[in-house]
């Protein structure tokens, strides 16, 4: 069944068959990542496995001082990035209680995972492996003029380095700051969700290397179900802050092909809280541009007509 869309919907609404919409008749289920940060131990095996498999070059021996994160963020030569977030808050007696530190939000302290309790305070060390979200509505793909970026039969988004001309349109189009131009190379690079491995029936290198199953690979529908159950379980254990990020098909990108279980606000992990695909407003932008252009034409015509008088 093919969905019927308005143009605006086609750019941002939920799509139940993203590969079908991209023109694949018979195709496998949409595949994706569920990254459960509540069991991430920050070992960075995903970063190394990704670089090894995809032959991504080393991109800087820089000591950042950002906890144990010397990677910094996703980029042309970093397709998996483990963030390390250190948090401290006071605690009261045996049970943690929310304390207003005058911070922007007051939240109950998490109880079970990613928490180690000391007496007078609580230290949390959040770790999360970030990756390309393989958006349902991928602006990078939509703006690519050469067709270097394409939707695969698995519903993932891949850039073909031999087609990319390095125009860089995709870079500002990505609202997550994932895709980037590699210095000295000039072309755009990002996670392929190991398209080559998927084609051979293998799971992506990062998921394969992850020792704690923090990175789970599989059909997106299954992953969403599993993730929902995991959030419920964590909340039942008292981790009231557990939430999914990017799993909702009704979000601003039509749902992410790679989504996350977080233990705090997305901003804490460096993720945009309310992502909206940058091309969602293209119709209205074009409408306004067309309107402005028409106005301009009219004005010029008016001048010309006026001048003739």
């Amino acid at each position: 069944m093919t969905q019927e869309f308005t143009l605006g919907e086609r750019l941002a609404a939920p799509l139940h068959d993203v590969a079908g919409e991209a023109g694949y008749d018979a195709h496998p289920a949409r595949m994706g990542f569920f990254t459960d940060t509540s069991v991430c131990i920050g070992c960075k095996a995903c970063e190394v496995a990704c670089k090894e498999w995809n032959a991504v070059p080393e991109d800087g021996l820089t000591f950042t001082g950002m906890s144990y994160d010397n990677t910094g963020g996703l980029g042309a030569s970093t397709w998996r990035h483990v963030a390390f977030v250190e948090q401290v808050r006071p605690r009261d007696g045996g049970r943690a209680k929310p304390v207003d530190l005058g911070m922007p939000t007051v939240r109950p302290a998490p109880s079970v995972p990613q928490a180690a309790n000391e007496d007078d305070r609580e230290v949390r060390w959040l770790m999360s492996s970030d990756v390309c979200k393989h958006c349902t509505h991928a602006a990078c793909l939509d703006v690519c003029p050469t067709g270097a970026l394409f939707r695969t039969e698995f519903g993932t988004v891949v850039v073909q380095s031999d087609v990319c001309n390095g125009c860089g349109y995709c870079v500002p189009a990505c609202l997550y700051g994932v895709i980037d131009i590699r210095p000295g190379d000039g072309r755009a690079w990002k996670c392929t969700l190991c398209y080559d491995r998927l084609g051979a029936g293998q799971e992506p290198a990062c998921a394969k290397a992850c020792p704690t199953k923090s990175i789970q690979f599989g059909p997106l529908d299954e992953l969403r179900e599993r993730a929902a159950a995991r959030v419920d379980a964590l909340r039942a254990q008292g981790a009231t802050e557990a939430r999914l990020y990017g799993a909702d098909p009704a979000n601003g990108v039509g749902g992410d092909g790679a989504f996350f279980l977080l233990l705090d606000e997305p901003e804490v992990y460096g993720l945009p809280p309310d992502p909206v695909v940058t091309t969602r407003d293209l119709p209205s932008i074009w409408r306004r541009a067309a309107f402005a252009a028409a106005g301009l034409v009219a004005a010029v015509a008016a001048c010309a007509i006026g001048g003739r008088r």
Partner: protein
Amino acid sequence: MAECHPVGFQWVMEAKQRGATIIHVDPRFTRTSAVADIHVPLRAGSDIAFLGGLIRYVLENDKWFREYVVAYTNAPMILREDFRDTEDLDGLFSGFQEDTRHYDPSTWQYEGADVAAAAGQRDQWSDMESNEKGSSSDSRSEHARRGAATARVSTSGAGGGTFHGRPERDDTLQHPRCVFQVLKRHFSRYTPEKVAEICGVSEAQFLRVAEALTANSGRERTSAFVYAVGWTHHTVGVQYIRTAAILQLLLGNIGRPGGGIMALRGHASIQGSTDIPTLFNILPGYLPMPHAHDHEDLATYISADAGSKGYWGNMDAYAVSLLKAWWGDAATADNDYCFDYLPRLTDKHSNYDTVMKQLAGESEGYFLIGENPAVGTANGKMNRLGLANLKWLVVRDFQLIESATFWKDGPEIETGELAPEEIGTEVFFLPAAAHTEKDGSFTNTQRMLQWHHKAVEPTGDQRSDLWFYFHLGRIIRAKLAGSTARADRPILDLTWDYPTKGEAGDPDAEAVLAEINGFGPDGKPLSSYTELKADGSTRCGCWIYCGCFKDGVNEPARRKPGSEQSWVAPEWGWAWPANRRILYNRASADPEGRPWSERKAYLWWDPEQKKWTGHDVPDFQPDKSPDYRPPEDAEREDAIAGTEPFIMQADGRGWLYVPAGLADGPLPAHYEPHESPVPNQLYGQQQNPARQVYPHRLNRYAPSGDDPGAEVFPYVFTTYRLTEHHTAGGMSRWLPYLSELQPEFFCEVSPQLAAERGLEHLGWATIVNPRAVIEARVLVTERMRPLRVGGRTLHQIGLPYHWGGNGLSTGDSANELLAIALDPNVHIQPTKASVCDIRPGRRPRAPAAAPLVADYQRRAGITAETGTEAVTGGKKK
């Protein structure tokens, strides 16, 4: 564990998902702490106080597993009247001899019996003797002399357990001199208040751990302990593990599923290189290395353990089979199975003793195989100066590590202490093949052998270690061929006929495994160590590995998925001995042979079939009924009763108290680290009195506690690893993908210490102590926090030790700061707790660096004697 063993940590995460409570006790807030339910950031070097507090909690609150303790441990054994505890002697046990710094352990024995250990330090007698040369032997008891004659074997791993007489027992545990009562008195001062004061943790936090641990132990539940070098790298390291063992025995957590004490080894197959040892004082399978003069012949060597109870009673079969494996047909009953061919111990030959000999010019050559002492061991400078004083050095590694290039670019070249043209050491660098480039086995902490197959051929001149030693031996043998010299016979008579494969001529690793497994009289592979004979008819390269190549099948190579077999997974790899997954598993059943609980059923006695059955291979004679009581004259395993699970021990029991086998006391006691800014708050005795010290101009020690000058080094530092790098960096600092993840040496400090010392985040810090000055980038983190210890604030500094001057990611080596002062049992250095000062900015370069260290030494009043005192008790109390 998550930090250094992330792959193994997946099972902890799985346990957590299934409801396990994860408690992490570590001075450092690591990746493990991040996912633990409870993190206890105790002061580095205070673990015995913490564990001792738990023992006291268990005893005082009646949380111990009575039936298990009475039947399976030595709690009822009665001690000699002349034993004195630390309670009586302000931190010393009876028998300490201040002049030799050694204990005479004779007063530690049971009343009415002498035993030697199945594991541990067994050269205490010989050490005493050698240290007492020239002094009157009258000072030694008759017992010690008797002991020297019977129990004098040397090993740091294990050995035979001798047993003479029958110890007296009180199964009501009421006798004032029974082990249980002694234990209770000994740990009575380890109160929660003292734990808090010593460890810098709150009483509430300590009690949370105590409650969680005891609530999860008993008939229905078990708790496991996991440790790594954080426990072993102390001058009292062996006693750390002992304290955990006492606790686990009291709680009934040994020999049962979900229990135990797991040692996480530093890297792959450290367990394997202890089983088939790279250590100086043991032979394969924990047979002791013979001593010169005292073990003139095989009979003398064996008789040190003869007539004993337990499985070590078969040591003659294990030793003869080993000699037959090595010397084959040349080994006959007439020539003592070539026992003369074995090297003998003439002295201490531990790692650091060897370094001292190098410095003294008494050691000519050195092989470094996957080891980088120039940056990887305590007191890097002494190690480098030792290397510079050799005739030849062989380095086999993946990269040109610092130990291979110290002669041209080491720190001493910069300071002018060494000049390349004046170093006589000839260095041979031979590139090594990685584990992916060769066949072989790893033995993990579970004693499980897992085979790895070669994935790719090594490139260039890279070769496996097996290749190197085989061909080295082959060439030496070729050069010696035809020699009639007696000294050459041990080499010429070796069985050295492994088939080789491929262009490079790599020996067939499976042939080596088969030799280790051993062959019977018919030339077929043996299937169990119980088949070994002392008559020369069997050959076996390592008795505990016997059976791993049963029927010619490489059992370590088995990889049957867990989902296709029982939960014990006996068909994944092969675990020594006899593919047993849990040692002493007889303890998983009650004395009558019934499971302690259905939930924890593992092995039980089947009265109908009259044999032990269950989920694992019984670690017991399979048909020995729980009713069996040994006759008076029983020997070997027949001397173990049907209710005694600890079959390697001469008395069949788990030892809460160690009557023999340890160099520094029958019970653990909290001593401060060799160097500590804190006085010992439990005893007048500051440090382990029996620790080994090495006074040397390059190895000066800091004053401790309240001693004058201690305030010059007010901070504790602890060294450790990061996930991103591997030990001294030889396997990681040359790899771009790992180096970019942790590109520089840094120190971790708390915001409070940063403020106190003016350290800036991302700036530089200079760290100095009596031995060295180094610099590191500063990482200010809330994960480090000041502790309240003994009424004062104590700051700790974290130092990952991976760096050196070579590779992609470079930096100073933290190990420059470490002292050479050793645990007396296993000769390990203290890397986990030492002292220093820290100041902002980069370190001085030569020639100003040495004067800075000298200035600190002067300010602290450091002399050759500082920190070397054995006994400090009495003067403070």
